[in-house]
């Protein structure tokens, strides 16, 4: 039997041009000024056309998936999971390599792709279904099932812009769940909706997985991966570092995450940027500068990051991103957001960010560090998951009891009032 998916020697390269600040595209104005200015610039600096840096998002990926297998892909943010899915779904081209897909491919990189707010629920079922690759007949046949699964029967002829976000997601997932290709590629779609609907989705996913279809599933939700997938690929820095059964992969991945965070920042190699300045260590301490093992809810903390520069950095800018342990970004602390100007740096130093009151509920979190020089023209250093830290319970509300089942990331102090007639 031939594999449903065969990936050989797959790589994807991005060219990062530091002069293009808004993303990949250029403007006509820039191109014209560039062409006009470049002879002068080349005379002055001798620089070649465009300062571009190569970045390999994927390198030498090889794997095979047999028909009917359900495969999970896990890895940190930036490991290359999404790029791999985008190539498998033919959204972007690989730089080298070859993929053979046997059967119709359906990809769900997002629920509700192409939903139009002005159109009604009924119209959006047809629109979204067609975009996902269903024929009109197929949609007509499954229409009632889709509507029933979504639970929005009453609002079928209401424009989707009047839907609550929950309703929209339910309708979108209902359409997607009735897609029946031989190969299904799914990215993170379960991270939506209320917990009851998530359960329903997981149930549906399980049904899909058992129906003999080949499924590739990417998620930060390790428990979902565990319950759905028989085999996993662990990715890191654009490579597959482990291809094994789910249990071994999750064990390996969790262990590696913790090892990474305990390793000295100086020795980390999974970083981006020019390296003219590098973070060397990070720690969390209390307002007196004593290092903390765990952070109580609502505590005042200082996050200290030390760095070393090999040249003078003018007007440095720092950012710290706090994410959940699975990598979902929660909030960022950024000097440029607050117009903070720091002095120029040379040699070694430490930057400190003080938080008056940590608004996080008990859980494990991680910090991503980032340093730019003036005007964000150059990324100097960027480390994902520079450290993990734990927030523990403290009686922030002064109630003497522990709030139960906080299914959220933040707590916000609030005042309650009620009027009765």
């Amino acid at each position, binding site marked *: *039997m031939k594999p449903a998916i065969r990936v050989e020697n797959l790589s994807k390269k991005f060219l990062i041009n530091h002069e293009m600040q808004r993303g990949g595209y250029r403007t006509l104005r820039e191109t014209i000024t560039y062409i006009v200015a470049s002879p002068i610039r080349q005379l002055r600096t001798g620089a070649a056309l465009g300062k571009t840096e190569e970045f390999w998002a994927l390198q030498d990926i090889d794997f095979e998936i047999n028909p009917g297998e359900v495969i999970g892909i896990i890895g940190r943010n930036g490991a290359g999971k999404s790029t791999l899915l985008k190539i498998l779904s033919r959204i972007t081209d690989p730089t080298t390599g070859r993929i053979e897909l046997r059967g119709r491919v359906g990809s769900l990189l997002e629920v509700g792709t192409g939903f139009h707010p002005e159109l009604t629920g009924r119209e959006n079922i047809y629109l979204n279904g067609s*975009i996902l690759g269903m024929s009109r007949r197929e949609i007509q046949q499954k229409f009632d099932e889709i509507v029933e699964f979504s639970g929005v029967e009453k609002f079928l002829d209401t424009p989707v812009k009047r839907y609550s976000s929950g309703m929209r997601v339910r309708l979108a997932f209902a359409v997607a769940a009735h897609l029946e290709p031989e190969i299904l590629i799914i990215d993170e779609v379960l991270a939506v909706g209320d917990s009851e609907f998530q359960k329903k989705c997981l149930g549906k996913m399980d049904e899909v997985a058992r129906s003999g279809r080949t499924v590739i599933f990417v998620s930060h939700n390790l428990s979902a991966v565990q319950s759905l997938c028989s085999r996993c690929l662990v990715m890191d820095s654009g490579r597959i570092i482990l291809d094994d059964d789910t249990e071994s992969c999750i064990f390996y991945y969790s262990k590696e995450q913790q090892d990474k965070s305990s390793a000295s920042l100086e020795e980390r190699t999974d970083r981006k940027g020019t390296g003219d300045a590098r973070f060397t260590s990070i720690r969390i301490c209390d307002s007196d500068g004593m290092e903390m093992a765990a952070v109580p809810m609502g505590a005042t903390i200082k996050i200290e990051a030390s760095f070393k520069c090999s040249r003078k950095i003018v007007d440095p800018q720092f950012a710290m991103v706090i994410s959940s342990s699975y990598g979902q970004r929660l909030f960022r602390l950024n000097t440029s957001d607050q117009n903070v100007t720091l002095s120029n740096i040379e040699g070694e130093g430490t930057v400190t960010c003080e938080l008056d009151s940590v608004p996080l509920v008990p859980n494990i979190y991680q910090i991503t560090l980032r340093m730019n020089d003036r005007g964000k023209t150059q990324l100097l250093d960027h480390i994902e998951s520079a450290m993990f830290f734990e927030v523990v319970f403290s009686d922030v509300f002064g109630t003497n009891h522990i709030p139960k089942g906080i299914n959220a990331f933040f707590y916000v102090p609030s005042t309650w009032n009620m009027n009765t007639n």
Partner: protein
Amino acid sequence: MLNSVEETSPALAVAQQASSPELNAAQLELPVTVIQPRKGWQLIDAKELWQYRELLFIFTWRDVKVRYKQTLLGAAWAIIQPFMMMLVFTVFLGKMAGVNSGEYPYPVFVYAGLLPWTFFSTAISNAGNSVVGANAIITKIYFPRLIIPFASVGAAVIDFLIAFSMLAALMFYYGIQPTWSLLLLPVLLCILGFAAMGIGTILAALNVAYRDFKYTIPFLVQIWMFATPSIYMEVNEAHLWQGGDEQEVAARESGDKKVYRSKTDIIVDSVKPLLAANPMTSVIAFFRAAVLGGPLPWTRLGHATAIIGLVFLVGVFYFRRIESRFADII
């Protein structure tokens, strides 16, 4: 690494083959998709476009529906735009400047030219902005990207058909009898459609590659309108340039002959070949002749169709060339 994978798979395959022979038989018929790096110029995959024809209709239907839902006047917009232009031209050119419209009343004459032009200009402006506007879909799902600008042209066809009813009403009002040549209308619409798809795909691709290109589109459409004399004037080259000569005579008499003459000569000589190459002039002239009845300029239509065919190919090939980078740069 590759070898080790291939060594293990046959064993697995044998095991599964024994258990489910019918599954294996079904698998033989499955379509195989191969994904490889694409470089340079790409052919048009007509078979794939045909497979995705339903999506093309859905996108067209969405564009039409959304446009008419969002506005109070709905479908009336398709009529109002050329109608207002007709009023403006009738008042300023027909009445005040006294431009000759031959044997037809000026409003009908000008509306019959504005109708195909409005279709063309709406189609190319919408198609030009369509791909950038669809970035959310492009980065999330695969389908032949050409469908997006094509659907914009499709939506403009619907507008055209609605606006055509106004022309029928005008003809009835002025008592103009339709002739058999009206049957050529689908062919002309087809030629216009190809012209719009050709230009539309070029604009769409340029718009993705250069994000500030969108500012040039309205501009371009306007210049093109003035460079298409058949919209508002009679298409008669001798007549068209005669006006210039009269002015020159006037200029000579008033004394500043040298300056005036040399200027017009240069402008006229440099613009003439461009105007001749503009296929819209001939197509619109033919359209008007077919609708209102009159001698059909077949030779000119032939030339224009050849140019449009070329533009269409250039547009589609350029689009296909840029296409593989869309998701990365959009």
